[in-house]
């Protein structure tokens, strides 16, 4: 924030608050876990842990891409549709085996990313609107490809992606973990990572400093697309069916929430990868708790609203969008 922004009255607090602002999410997770151990039967079991991790894996993967996009002061609403597109493409090419099919699915993600990226980087369309186009059209396209109908998937290799596990850790979780490490590396270690936060922080300055602004933006949206596609593939493998009509519905909101709850401001210029993962976990835990305690939808939704606000309040970075 700039000199005068800091000037605006900001809640300043002691160490605790400062600490909370950095580790709020983790604190919240811890709290929620403790509560659950206390009130939820059969919570502290390996199976349960598995379930939560497996279910959150796709969200985490999408959120990683979303975090990068948000870092550039953008947002990607099309992620849900990308998942649908990926899941729709898979069965079409499973005839050639799982590998090629997955490749095609990922290419679908790349394509969407390219469109979004070009709209944002070259045409200067505002990200929300640019990605809104494919948010609308993408799922439609997926349904066209799938002939509108859900298809069961029988390919063993693909199904294993969803069901098998490495050293007791389910494969989707492994993938999510690996991708988290990669993205962390990208943000921390690569020129690209540094440049993207700079662009988010001050685009004009970045241009004047000779950064390849357009290329970076394009790449960011492509990455987001690919990650969403990966999530789509995993979700399909887990569902053992390709269901483009409902797969990834409202994913964009979950992902954005995860990112922001994780302490990445929507104003861009900063990316917190681990925070994002934590954010996704937090939301997953909340949903799980509400379901396990069999709360009616009405209450569930209101409780979620409150918890999201509380978490963001704790993890509050800069102000703004």
């Amino acid at each position, binding site marked *: 924030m700039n000199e005068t922004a800091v000037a605006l009255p900001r809640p300043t607090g002691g160490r605790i608050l400062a600490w909370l602002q950095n580790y709020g999410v983790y604190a919240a997770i811890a709290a929620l876990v403790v509560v659950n151990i206390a009130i939820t039967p059969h919570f502290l079991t390996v199976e349960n842990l598995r*379930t939560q991790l497996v279910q959150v894996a796709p969200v985490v993967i999408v959120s990683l891409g979303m975090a990068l996009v948000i870092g550039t002061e953008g947002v990607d609403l099309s992620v849900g549709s990308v998942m649908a597109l990926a899941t729709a493409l898979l069965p079409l090419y499973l005839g050639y085996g799982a590998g090629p099919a997955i490749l095609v699915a990922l290419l679908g993600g790349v394509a969407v990313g390219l469109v979004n990226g070009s709209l944002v980087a070259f045409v200067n369309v505002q990200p929300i609107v640019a990605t809104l186009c494919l948010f609308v059209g993408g799922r439609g396209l997926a349904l066209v490809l799938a002939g509108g109908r859900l*298809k069961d*998937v029988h390919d063993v290799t693909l199904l294993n992606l969803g069901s098998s596990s490495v050293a007791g850790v389910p494969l989707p979780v492994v993938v999510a973990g690996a991708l988290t490490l990669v993205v962390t590396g990208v943000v921390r270690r690569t020129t690209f990572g540094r440049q993207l936060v700079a662009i988010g922080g001050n685009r004009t300055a970045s241009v004047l400093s000779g950064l390849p602004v357009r290329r970076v933006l394009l790449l960011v949206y492509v990455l987001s697309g690919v990650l969403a596609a990966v999530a789509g593939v995993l979700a399909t493998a887990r569902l053992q069916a390709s269901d483009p009509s409902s797969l990834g519905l409202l994913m964009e909101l979950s992902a954005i929430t995860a990112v922001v709850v994780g302490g990445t401001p929507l104003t861009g210029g900063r990316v917190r990868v681990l925070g994002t993962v934590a954010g996704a976990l937090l939301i997953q835990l909340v949903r799980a708790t509400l379901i396990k305690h069999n709360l009616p939808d009405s209450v569930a939704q209101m409780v979620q609203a409150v918890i999201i606000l509380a978490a963001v309040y704790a993890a509050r970075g800069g102000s703004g969008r």
Partner: protein
Amino acid sequence: AKSEKDQPTGGGGAQAGQVVQSPSGSAPSCTLSKFGGTKFDPKTAVVGFSQSEKEANPFRIAETQSIKAEAKQEGIAGLRVTNGQSQFSKQISDVQQLIAQGAKALVIAPLNSDGWEPVLQQATAKHIPIITVDRKINATACKDYVTFIGSDFYQQGKRAADQMIKALNGKGKVAILLGSSGNNVTTERTNGFKEEIAKQAPGIQITFEQTGDFAREKGQQVTEQMIQSHPDVGAIYAENDEMALGAVTALKGAGKKAGDVKIVSVDGTRNAVTQIVSGWIYAVVESNPRFGPLAFQTLTKFVNGEPIPDKVIISDREYDSSNAEQSVASAY
């Protein structure tokens, strides 16, 4: 593109069209003159069909296909189809647009039973006969609209309950996978089920009910959570087949055997019926989407001045281990 081996996808054809249950509503009473409409020839006139949701699930696909197919067969050239994309406001304006385009008759699959005021006003003003399929419209038959053709969701709930009672022979813990909140179908299938259970089998408790939004993935996720928190649940009532199939995937994932948890669901899609054969689903109550023939028969009768009932309830079949094998082919 080269997809996997053929999928068991049905939908096409008119196999197992609908059978009218001995008209449970009032006797045939509604006539063109009573309705105040004028005679016209469906073959040449513009006839509008307003679908409520995307043709993205077996039910809607079969429904639309059957309407289109039948129209072709009857030689109704002027059929115009719109789709509300699950947005009620859109469906309303869709229908209004159909009227504006000069539709002489309307077949509507309502997304919601209430809120049809503006459409009904315009239609009655022009004496356009409306036939609603699969869901009712809350208004007076033969005045605001002509008649309703469809299943009785409350009954479906009841019959599912009966199957459930058989499955658990009268006692045990049951979980419900609800449809999406605020949806008439959800409400009626739930009420029918609960009331029947309460009446017939006090020994059965419903210990868990969460929405699965009629979607397979959501059904799977909710079931996974349930398996952890309510391990004692012995049966699942899914308010549509998709959620039931999601539940099946979840149970498999949790290492359960076929039949460990009894599943009863509503719809009768081919995938579900297949799962009965393989033993994962106990029974399925059909909700037949092939409205085409019945709808156009009724319409033709009506414009020819013959009386028609103000409510045509179709008799839905039931699939269970006894008949699943041979019925798979005819399921949609």
